[in-house]
């Protein structure tokens, strides 16, 4: 007998809760094969960034696992943050995190993202690393981590997405408060353009 890709046997039908679970499992099934990642440097020394870039080049090639670096946060499943968080990129990091569609995963690369690393008491750095700004699922230690360690981190992240590993608060959608960004008022449509 062939096993189906999504196991729905333990779900009772016609309850509002089960519908949610079915939806979640469908979503997971759809995205774990090809998670798209977005990279943001929030104050790193470039060490982790150049090592992250080796992942898309021939020797390490994470496209084997379907992972692809993507430009827009709105298309991404994984946010890869490198480095300590400086005060100026803090707001931008929160904005990128909020722009990503739910469910989202965050991977923190390097010692700096864990605790601030060598920059731990600099005056312009958020104390205590990335997890004080946005919720992080997996950290990869190292200064910088080896590409193999980064691949391992990505696979652990995918295991979390599959539900093989537990993360206590994973099922709740996480909302980080938007920074106070003064949005420019939209201009009225110009007369020339409408004709």
């Amino acid at each position, binding site marked *: 007998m062939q096993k189906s890709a999504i196991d729905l046997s333990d779900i009772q039908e016609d309850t509002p809760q089960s519908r949610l679970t079915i939806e979640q499992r469908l979503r997971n099934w759809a995205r774990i094969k090809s998670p798209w990642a977005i990279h943001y440097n929030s*104050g790193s020394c470039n*060490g982790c960034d150049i*090592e992250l870039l080796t992942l898309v080049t021939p020797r390490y090639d994470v496209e084997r696992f379907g992972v692809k670096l993507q430009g827009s946060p709105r298309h991404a499943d994984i946010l890869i943050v490198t480095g300590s968080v400086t*005060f*100026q*990129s803090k707001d931008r990091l929160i904005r990128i995190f909020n722009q990503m569609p739910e469910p989202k995963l965050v991977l923190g690369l390097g010692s700096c993202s864990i605790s601030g690393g060598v*920059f731990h008491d600099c005056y312009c750095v958020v104390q205590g690393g990335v997890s004080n700004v946005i919720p992080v699922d997996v950290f990869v230690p190292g*200064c910088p981590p080896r590409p193999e360690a980064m691949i391992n981190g990505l696979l652990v992240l995918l295991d979390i997405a599959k539900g093989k590993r537990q993360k206590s608060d994973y099922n709740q959608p996480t909302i980080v408060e938007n920074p106070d960004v003064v949005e420019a008022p939209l201009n009225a449509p110009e007369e020339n353009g409408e004709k």
Partner: protein
Amino acid sequence: MTELQEINKSTSAKKYIVPIGPQHPALKEPGHFQFTVEGEIVVDATIRLGYVHRGIEKAAEQRNYTQVLYLVERVCGICSHSHGTAFIQCAEKLAGVEIPPRAKAVRAIAGEIERLHSHLLWLGVASHGGGFDSMFMYSWRDREIVMEILENFFGNRVNYSVNIPGGVKEDITTEFIDQVTPKLEYLKKRMEYYLDVINTDITFRQRTVNIGKIGKVETDKLGATGPTARASGVARDMRITRPYDGYDLFPVNIVTDDRCDLNARFVVRIKECIESILYIIDVMNRMPDGELTAKMPRKIPAGEYMSSVEAPRGELFYFVRSNGTENPDRVKIRTASLCNWGTVVSSVAKGHKLADMPMILSGIDPCFSCNDRMVQISRGKNDSEVWTWEQLRKYGIEYYQ
């Protein structure tokens, strides 16, 4: 004139501002650019930096010299050896310590391996900016050879910290020389192949020849350094004009080009790689004998010293003032990327198509984490010269919010 033509005329005269960054697929690091375009032609460009300002210069004052050495290596992960060398040179000169010749040779070799890895990295990123992705993949595949050398020898792929106060950590053994020489010879062949590609590939030549031109006089005036200056015929190289550790014993050849365009910047960097390979092989085979370290005191005598190092991107300048304690009193860093921004913003970018911008930007090999320093301009007499820790912290927080 019909109505439609009138509309076309009124819209074509309009200027639009295209914002890029801080998070953008073409940028690996955060920086914000605003290009004012008329149609497709860029008429003005402004940059806003500071997203990676971490306050390293201030933090250096609270750590001792050994700790600061590891801190300044993290100013930039790509040219970490140059930062470490420039800083520790100052400390050694202040303490009156002369490092042994063998340590000097190891420092020079490490510096050249770093130049190789940085230029190969740049070659990939710059050709990626021009849409030449096969070159990106090729050069990064070859860069792994350099990374292997770095890892086998120094123990880490990036931030390898060869320097310690008073010398170096690792020795160049005969095994290492036997292992490295064939790899370097293979790399040399690859670099000659890349030189051939960028000079013959028609599509690539169309994207680089006569793009981003900047004259020799203007380059000199804007204070550009490194390969950006050398590609415009300005012979500026700290390894030759002010030889430091290693380069005083083993001189290096300078590479210049007079064509001043983007293609010249590619040619200069690739030829520099070939020079570096020849230099490493040469120095490895006539290593001076002797110790690797000299005794270095913990407390550095009071005084001031400036040192310049030729990083892969250009001149890297360090100023260190000591007050006789274990911690430096002041560390000032000026990096090459900051000097080179002027060439892009003031002249190169204007008059080109928007599609050329990624290549022109990456043509100077920008490194954002290098160039985010704080500058306070003093106006009026009442500004206090000395800032307290609280003032500086408050200023940093307010400025960046």
